[in-house]
């Protein structure tokens, strides 16, 4: 390992530019640590975002050498090509400053996709018994552990090309709810994902699936939504 890393960091807003820094290489060092080093020792005004440090909060995602990743759990040795790192804010989101992206639109679309539980019961009812082996529960489980990091969203060219496209994480969440037998909102949800720029706009590029740091498969979830909504449409249950 070289003893210094050549690091280029995006500075400024959308009209910013890359600035180069030399950061000492360490044995245990994540990309987040590199960025932190620059802020602590080289340029105190560098802005970035993190919280949990362990891949649970999805706050720290950035473009690292062109690829969206969670930086807190990306060891430098796995990504630095020839001791070089280029770090930029997440693609497909407005830049706030330096490495921090604005996620409001991401969560706005989450709501547009009806990515929220619609209750059919209240706190006064017992918890609904659900057989963990049913196909629906399994399908929900397979897609549920999303940390809303935005990596998939930043890696999807359909998002880039169609500003209204709901996005892989959002549709993946909608799919977990479609498979949640307790949910009462599926009619509206299917309408929401079946409108223009919904699940049917996905071209199965599969970058979302390949890059999702927690190993989810939004492509599969979206395919599920396509099937489900198509069936509902053909039965005349959807009036988009």
């Amino acid at each position, binding site marked *: 390992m070289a003893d210094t890393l050549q690091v280029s960091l995006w500075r400024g807003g959308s009209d910013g530019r890359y600035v180069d820094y030399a950061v000492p290489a360490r044995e245990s060092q994540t990309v987040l640590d590199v960025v932190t080093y620059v802020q602590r020792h080289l340029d105190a005004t560098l802005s970035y975002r993190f919280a949990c440090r362990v891949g649970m909060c999805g706050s720290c995602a950035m473009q690292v050498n062109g*690829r969206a990743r969670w930086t807190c759990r990306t060891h430098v040795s796995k990504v630095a090509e020839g001791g070089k790192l*280029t770090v*930029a804010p997440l693609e497909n989101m407005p830049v706030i400053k330096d490495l921090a992206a604005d996620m409001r639109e991401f969560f706005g679309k989450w709501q547009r996709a009806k990515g929220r539980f619609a209750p059919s019961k209240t706190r006064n009812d017992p918890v609904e018994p659900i057989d963990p082996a049913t196909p629906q529960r399994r399908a929900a489980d397979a897609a549920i552990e999303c940390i809303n990091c935005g990596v998939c969203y930043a*890696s999807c*060219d359909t998002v880039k090309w169609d500003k209204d496209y709901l996005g892989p994480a959002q549709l993946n969440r909608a799919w977990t709810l479609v498979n949640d037998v307790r949910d009462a909102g599926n009619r509206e949800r299917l309408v929401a994902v079946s409108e223009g720029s919904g699940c049917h706009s996905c071209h*199965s590029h*599969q*970058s979302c699936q390949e890059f999702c740091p927690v190993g989810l498969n939004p492509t599969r979830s979206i*395919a599920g939504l396509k099937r489900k909504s198509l069936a509902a449409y053909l039965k005349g249950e959807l009036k988009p």
Partner: protein
Amino acid sequence: MSMLANRTRPLWFAAMIHRLSGLGLAIFLPFHFLVLGLAIRGEAQLDTFLRWTDQPLVKFSESALVGLLAVHMLGGLRLLALENMSWRGGQAVRALGLIAIAALVAVYFLVRVF
């Protein structure tokens, strides 16, 4: 900005090939229809046309079109399967295989027209 990494993946290329082949077909098709429509005015013209198509360059581009059709169809069938059948991994390998088959069809056509 370094090259976006999602654009260096096989499945992204597969999607681009699918799109460009579809686009190519869409652009070619009106001309194809136009030419066939000439047949209304008699076989003579059509024959002149078909003789024109004997030129090597035309044969090459016709082979390319057959290739486009094959690659677009196979790619489209892959997508239909992915969307409608239970999930399978190895999509990149599949996509590459289908593109290869389409290329073979095109080459076969090329060999046959000459």
